[in-house]
């Protein structure tokens, strides 16, 4: 169990740096399906994992390349902090089974958004010739 946590952390870290995401989107299903955590516990543990600035090492690399919009970043942090409170209240009041289903729908939506970006870029490249 402890060994799994350390290895799983490393895999998720690579995704964090590569895609600029928090990692919970992979961590939560991994905890539910591989380790049979309850949906609520998996989500609470995912939030615990993200409290320290674990993306700092990754951020450094982006910072050196000037690929960071600081003002937008601060606004996003503020919005996520406030929104996170209300989201967690919603989650605690939702039955585990339904929450798992909603999580699945959310992942499908997030996947569609990521995919769409790729198609948009391709058509822009095609227009440029």
């Amino acid at each position: 169990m402890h060994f799994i946590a350390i290895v799983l952390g490393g895999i998720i870290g690579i995704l964090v740096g590569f895609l600029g995401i928090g990692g919970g989107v992979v961590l939560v299903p991994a905890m539910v399906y591989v380790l049979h955590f309850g949906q609520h516990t998996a989500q609470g543990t995912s939030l615990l994992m993200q409290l320290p600035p674990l993306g700092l090492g990754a951020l450094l690399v982006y910072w050196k390349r000037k690929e960071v919009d600081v003002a937008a970043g601060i606004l996003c942090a503020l919005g996520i902090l406030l929104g996170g409170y209300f989201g967690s209240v919603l989650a605690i009041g939702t039955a585990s089974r339904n929450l798992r289903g909603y999580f699945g729908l959310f992942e499908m939506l997030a996947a569609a958004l990521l995919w769409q970006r790729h198609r948009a870029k391709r058509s822009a490249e095609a227009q440029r010739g």
Partner: protein
Amino acid sequence: MGSRYLRWAAILVVACVVGVAGGMFGLGGGVLLVPLLVLLFAFDQHKAQGTSLIALVPPTGLLGFLNYAHAHEVAWTFGFLLMPGVFLGGFLGSWLAQKLSPDRMRVTFAALLFLIGAAQAIAAWWK
């Protein structure tokens, strides 16, 4: 000048929506924030990822996390053991992202994410 403040207000509103989803699903929100910065605010992909990473430096999940902790829905030991791996893996991943074009990786990841999501929704409601 005015349009810049309007843009900042719009980013704040979008971030609040991302935060609600983050608290609801136990996520940092980057997975939603990165595509939205690109699609709605015309960020370049690398810049969106860097901005998402700086937004996740402060403990933005704190208010949400406290609600889960209060409801006893946190596996403490497991959560702490994940941290060193994520931190070190983050260096490797960001280095890779600057070396390779992350486009193909992102599409693979999107496809994988879609399958995980579909499996989870089906398992929750039709089994």
